[in-house]
């Protein structure tokens, strides 16, 4: 069971307090009607699903109830960082280079 740091509560709590919300930074288009079917399908369904660092959404559902983002390595399952919703996505490639060192 993962141990997850909630940036809103400032504490670590076990995974069962959280719900994973899938890949982060897939913004809903402001004008969905302007997208063609292919673009809309990309938004709805296409995911990077990387073997490596992934920015993903978590919600502290049995805590503060708030969403936040986390960068996690999908092979080791270790968290690299957490940050609040609305903050920009860290440079995953740079983080990966750091992690490799």
């Amino acid at each position, binding site marked *: 069971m*993962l141990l997850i740091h909630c940036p809103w509560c400032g504490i670590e709590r076990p995974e069962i307090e959280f719900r994973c919300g899938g890949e982060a930074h897939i913004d809903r288009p402001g004008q969905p009607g302007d997208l063609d079917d292919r673009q809309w*399908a990309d938004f709805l369904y296409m995911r990077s699903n990387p073997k490596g660092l992934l920015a993903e959404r978590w919600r502290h559902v049995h805590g503060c109830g708030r969403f936040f983002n986390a960068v996690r390595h999908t092979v080791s399952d270790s968290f690299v960082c957490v940050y609040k919703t609305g903050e920009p996505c860290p440079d995953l490639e740079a983080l990966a280079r750091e992690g490799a060192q």
Partner: protein
Amino acid sequence: MTRFSFWELARKAVNAHQDWGHQWRKPDPKPEYDVIIIGAGGHGLATAYYLAKEHGVTNVAVLEKGWLGGGNTGRNTTIVRSNYLWEESEGLYDQAMDLWQDLSQELNYNIMYSARGVMMLAHTVHDVQVFKRHVHANRLAGVQNEWLTPEEAKAYCPPLNIGKNIRYPVMGAALQRKAGVARHDAVAWGYARGADQYGVDIIQNCAVTGIRRAADGSVSGVETSRGFIGAKKVGVVAAGHTSVVMDMAGVRMPLESNPLQALVSEPVKPCFPCVVMSNTVHAYLSQSDKGELVIGAGTDQYVSYSQTGGLQITTHTVDAICELFPMFRRMRMLRNWGGIVDVTPDRSPIIGKTPVPGLFVNCGWGTGGFKATPGSGHVFAHTIARDEPHRINAPFTLDRFRTGRLIDEAAAAAVAH
């Protein structure tokens, strides 16, 4: 290649089995093949086998970064059934079901298909409605499936607790009698040996690191840990790693890879005659030929390639097993492991062409790919050989996510009201 039989076994016993040869070769890669299959799991090996056997395409390599059959093929709970809801799924899985029945004879490799019957339990009024809908739909399609009362379910599976003293009492069950289990490793090995006999090169410990494309955008071959290998047609059958491989060709996929766990008990004498599945309480149980209770647990909620999962996923399933089969509470978990399942938004696979000419994909089987192994290989081989999908896999396109023509087996079981 030696044909397997009791007499051959007895003959070889005379010389203490010194005379058995390799079941498959250990070839070095050739510079070029007509078709490269990426992934030597059951689906990939079956694809190669049927390419050679049904379509005469024998200049084929199957590339495997680890060892053949080492992914989900060797990690699943081996349930085989075809009582799916939608016509598209019925067609896909029932063709596989037909192939399972004679697969040992077809491959001359005993894959131990055991038609023990798969019973799916209903615990709520909603479950009853859903499963009866399956039974009616299956009957019309000619797919075996029948409805059992709780008492009939108990008669078919005596350890089942149909008492009212459990949290979600059993209200009935859908039973497919010819469904069952098979020996997973033997399926991979049988197809490997079969494909090898037709001249297919199975190249293990050969990781694909890139997909090379020609000027016109079509596939020209793959970069591997053993150098470049040319091919005009490449079929990706990489299960949990499909996104990673497809990314090499610049194709994004509607997939997420999740850990899926399973476990076995210590072996005991035969005590469990069939396969029981319960979606509502999350329990999947059968007994292997060795006597182990084989139990399927759930998926973790996050993307992971770690082949491990959380304890809470396992315990949740064991809870359900103990609730339905209270005599198994004193049994013990011997081994618990994880696989990586590639899941599509509608929980149905993608089998067909991709936007890249010459690149084909067979993926997204989620938690249920083993049962389709023969059929999946059969239709994928057809798709690659003819450059167009077989009638059966025609609906399972990547394009359905654009059009919205989803084949949503999971939604059909959604609980509300």
